Structure formats: structure tokens, C-alpha cells
């Protein structure tokens, strides 16, 4: 072969080999393996990523949090809980439902007294709201409107998502609060399910589906509605007269990074809760948070108290009873879906 030709080939192979070597060296030195093991890992449900990121920043400004590096994974509450169960690394979990934490307690990954503190393990809270297009073209005022013919509901799927269960219970609870009988409320739920056009995988995916035009009323967390408005979307949201108080648990894992307790304390402190509030969550615990919340219907009075604020504890008899009645295999939810 002519010499120049050989030289050109050699050049190509040489440059490919060099690139390979350099990148390999680059990866090794960039701390691909070593560092990341020390990172404080948060596994959370889909919606509070922005809030947790903000709290992380503030935490890193404190003496306890200085120099601590974080890593976060967010997704549907149930799915995230199961992935930790199956071996995914976590130091702190922040789920939508108590049941998702309990699952890990049962597997000895979380101490049984995780909810013995002043807030019973709750770190963030919100209410269920109805999100609609700008200007509320359908004139939605409450849960009863959702069974109208022109309404297409988007909500999350209870199989994977925590948000979904809050939404369903809120809808049902509102019926009871309005004085209807159990049978009537159940019939409403059947109609309600008929009007759900999209069952999304998580609270965030439900928001995405709504954004993509799949459905015209989204049932979501108040904080998610506020966050989307902070992100520039022009949706409107309605806080129904009767709705459910959403309480999200947070817990530290058994063999977590030692800074975990400091982190949890910070999350529950006024500074931590302020960040939650800034992202649209309602404050938890005995803190006094007074900031304007951009994106809320009224930024200076962002969290109106509904006429009927239902809670799982008071109106549904606690989560164990609720799960048994509603979400166990063959229980009420499945029965009503099947009708």
C-alpha cells in the first residue's frame, strides 16, 4: 500500500486510541466512584424536588450542613419506596404516603419510632386542588363539577403514585362532608372514575399529561399547581370548599449518613419550612412562616383554609383503616373502578 495511505490510517487509529485513553483517565480522576458514595442521598416522591433542592442550598449554609454533598432521586411515591426496598441507596426518604415509609419500616430499613417526633413524622403538607386552564373556561367550582359531561379528569394512578390516593380520598371525603350518604358518595366515585381520561404514573406525570392536553381538569397537590405557575404556566387552580389535608412523611434510614438527623431537624425548622412554603407547600409544625408565595392565587395569603379541611386521622380513621378499606387488593377502590 502507498505509504501516505498507511500513515493516514495510523493517524486515525492513533487519535481514536488517544481519545479513549484521555477520557478514561478523565473519568477516573473526576471521582466517578469514590466521592458519590459519601453523598447524602434523598429519595423522594415526584413533586418536592424543587423544594428539597432549595432546602439543600440553605442547609449547606449552616455549620452542620457545610460541605455536605447531596444526591436526589424523585419519582412516583410507591415506585420509589419499592426501589429502596430492592436495594437502591438512600439516607433520607420523603414520600407522599405514610404507607410508603411503613413498607421500609417493616423491612427494618427505618426505625420504628420514626414518627414519634412532634410532627408525627410529617415534613411537608398541602391540600388537594383542581387545576384548570387559564381563565377557568369550564367554570369549575368544586368536586361536583367533575362528573359533568364536558369534563375530562387527569389524575395519578393509585398503583404507583401517592398523589393518587390523596386525590381519590379527597373526592370521596368531599361528598361525605357535603352530607351525602356512603352509597351516594360511592356512586359519585364511580362517575368520577368514568370521567378520568388519564391515569398518570405519578403526580408530576399527571401534571405533564395535563400540559400535553390530555384532559381539561387536573387533580393535584396545591404545591404542584403553584410550582407550575412559578415555572411560567398560566393555569388557574381552585381550592375546593371541602378538601383533604395532604401530609407527607419524611424519615431517616437506619444506617444513614450521620448528618441525617441534622438534616431532618433543619427540614422541620423555620428555615426549612420557609423553603417549602416558597415552593407552595403549607408549613408543618410549630413554625411561623410569613413570606409571599409567588404563583399562589393570592401571594400574600397563599393558603386559604377551606370550609371543610378533612384529615385522614379525623375523617377516615387513620391510614391503616383507610388502606384496608380502600386500597388493599379487592378493596373499595378496585370495586368501584370495576363498576
Amino acid at each position: 500500500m502507498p505509504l501516505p495511505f498507511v500513515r493516514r490510517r495510523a493517524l486515525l487509529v492513533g487519535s481514536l486510541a488517544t481519545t479513549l485513553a484521555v477520557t478514561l483517565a478523565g473519568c477516573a480522576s473526576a471521582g466517578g466512584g469514590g466521592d458519590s458514595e459519601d453523598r447524602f442521598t434523598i429519595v423522594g416522591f415526584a413533586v418536592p424536588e424543587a423544594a428539597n433542592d432549595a432546602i439543600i442550598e440553605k442547609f449547606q449554609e449552616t455549620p452542620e450542613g457545610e460541605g455536605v454533598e447531596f444526591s436526589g432521586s424523585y419519582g412516583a411515591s410507591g415506585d420509589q419506596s419499592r426501589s429502596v426496598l430492592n436495594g437502591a441507596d438512600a439516607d433520607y426518604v420523603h414520600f407522599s404516603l405514610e404507607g410508603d415509609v411503613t413498607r421500609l419500616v417493616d423491612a427494618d430499613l427505618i426505625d420504628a419510632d420514626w414518627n414519634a417526633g412532634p410532627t408525627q413524622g410529617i415534613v411537608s403538607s398541602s391540600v388537594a386542588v383542581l387545576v384548570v386552564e387559564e381563565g377557568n373556561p369550564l367554570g369549575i367550582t368544586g368536586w361536583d363539577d367533575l362528573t359533568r359531561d364536558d369534563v375530562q379528569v387527569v389524575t395519578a394512578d393509585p398503583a404507583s403514585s401517592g398523589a393518587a390516593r390523596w386525590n381519590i380520598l379527597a373526592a370521596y371525603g368531599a361528598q361525605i362532608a357535603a352530607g351525602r350518604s356512603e352509597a351516594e358518595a360511592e356512586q359519585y366515585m364511580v362517575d368520577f372514575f368514568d370521567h378520568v381520561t388519564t391515569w398518570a404514573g405519578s403526580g408530576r406525570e399527571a401534571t405533564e399529561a395535563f400540559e400535553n392536553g390530555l384532559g381539561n381538569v387536573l387533580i393535584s397537590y396545591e404545591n404542584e399547581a403553584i410550582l407550575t405557575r412559578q415555572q411560567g404556566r398560566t393555569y388557574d387552580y381552585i381550592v375546593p370548599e371541602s378538601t383533604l389535608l395532604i401530609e407527607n412523611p419524611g424519615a431517616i434510614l437506619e444506617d444513614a449518613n450521620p448528618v441525617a438527623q441534622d438534616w431532618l431537624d433543619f427540614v422541620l425548622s423555620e428555615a426549612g419550612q420557609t423553603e417549602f412554603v416558597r415552593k407552595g407547600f403549607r408549613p408543618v409544625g410549630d413554625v411561623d412562616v410569613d413570606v409571599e408565595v409567588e404563583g399562589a392565587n393570592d401571594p400574600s395569603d397563599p393558603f386559604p383554609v377551606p370550609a371543610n379541611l378533612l384529615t385522614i386521622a379525623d375523617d377516615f380513621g387513620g391510614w391503616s383503616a383507610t388502606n384496608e378499606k380502600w386500597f388493599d387488593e379487592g378493596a373499595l377502590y378496585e370495586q368501584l373502578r370495576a363498576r
Partner: protein
Amino acid sequence: MSSTDTAPVPGSGPGGSPGGTDPRPAPRKGKAPRQLRAADRLGLGSGLGLGLLMLWFSVLVLLPLAAVVVTATEGGWGTFVSVVSEADTRAALVLTVSEALGVAVVNAVVGTVIAWVLVRDDFRGKRLLEVVIDVPFALPTIVAGLVLLSLYGPRSPIGVNVVGTRTGIFLALLFVTLPFVVRTVQPVLAELDAEVEEAAASLGASQFTILRRIIIPSLVPAITAGTSLAFARAISEFGSLVLIAGNKAGETEVASLRILKYIEGDYYEKAAVVAFILLLVSALVIVALDLVSRKVAIRG
């Protein structure tokens, strides 16, 4: 030595999945394997080598796939029936196969036309088309999804939004399967002998007749091969559909997403059953492709 291409390599199954590139089907002349003689039977050193390679292959491929098959079948007919009886799962499988069939058929036609233009026509910028055709091969599937969303999603500059529709699924599948038929037909078309066509023309056959009686029949094996590849790819597709399909159970949820849903819900047996069904369908396609390729080999 000319390494121009005649046909897809036999026994090499449906190719090119998410991101894979094989624009140049390898040369194959159907030579008798002269080099295999009795002396080349496996000796000790090579036996050890074979052992190590098989260990890696088992750890990587065989054991995991066996785990799927076993998990799928250990429940016996019971599990199988209970999974298939779920309306949403049935819908997912039907949707997946029907969309894949549709896309395969479209590709059979469009791919051949594109190959025709690439081979029989000559114009400035044709080289660019070649690169464009290969892009879906090399692109990560999630990026393919994002790419299509840019033009056909909620914030589309032309106001077209196919998210959550079967059209969206079809579009995504068209995107990822674009190169398959083109790349299997192109080399065959390029190799066609001019003499036969000229002889036919001199005997008075119209262009259309030449196309119908001479060209298309010689292309059929290549078209079939490419279509099988496209079909196998389409039923397996995942990444590009995650963002576009809307994944509404019972309507726009494809099999691969159904499997994911089962996995995330810890329903491993059900996931394995659906996966097994997909594997069976793929296996059928591999066998079909192998047979077609052998027919091509006989033709020489």
C-alpha cells in the same frame, strides 16, 4: 477484493436496536468454508478460551434471559392466563403488534422508494440524505422522543400536537425504524445487473413492467429482511415512546411500558410473562429472517 454488498448476513437476526448503527450489511459470497478442516476441531487451549467467553456470555445474556423465561413460566398456565386476561395488558400487546405491523408495512414501501432514489437518482445533497437517514440509528431513544416532541408536541411551532395519540406512537416508530428497509434494500438495488433491464427494454417492455417483473422480485428478499428488522425494532421500542405516547393504559400504552409498570409495582411474574411473549415474537422474527436469508444465499 471487492466488498460490495449483496445481501444481509444470514443467521444474524434482526438488527439495529435503539442507537445501533449498521448501514453497511456485511459482504457474503456464500463461499464454502474451506478453512474448516478436521485439524481445526477445538483443542485444549481454544477450549479454555471458549469456556471463558461462554462464562461471560452466560453471565451477561443467557442467565438473565433464562431468569425471565423461568419466572414467566413457573406460574404455569395460571399466571399466563391471569396476565393476558387483564384488559389493559391485552390492549398493550394488541396495540404494540398492530402499530409495529403498520409501521413495518409503511417502511416496506417508503424504505424501498428512498433506496430507489438513493441508488437510481443523482443530485446535489444526496450525500446529506444518507447521513439524515442514519440519524435515527445512532440517536439515543429518549433523545429521539425529545426530538419529535420539539416539532410534534405541545409547544410545536406548527401547532401539531400528537402527544397521547396513536398517531404519536406511529410517528415515533416511523422515526426509529426509518433506516432498516432502506439499508437492506440499497445494496441489493445497487448490485442489480443492468443487462437484464436493458434486455427487457429492448424487447419492448415498459418501465412499469420492468419494475414489476424484474426489479421488484429481485428486491423482495431484501425488503422482507428489512421489514422484519423494522418490525422487531418497533415492538421493542421504549425510549421514544415514554414522552410521546401518553402511556394511557388500555389506549396508548405499549407492551414495553406495560412491563415497566409491572416492574415498578413489583409484579415481576407478570412483567416476565409479557416480556416472554415479546421474546417469542422476536424469536419468530429471527427464524423468519434466517429462512429468508438462506433463500437469498441459494440465489447467490
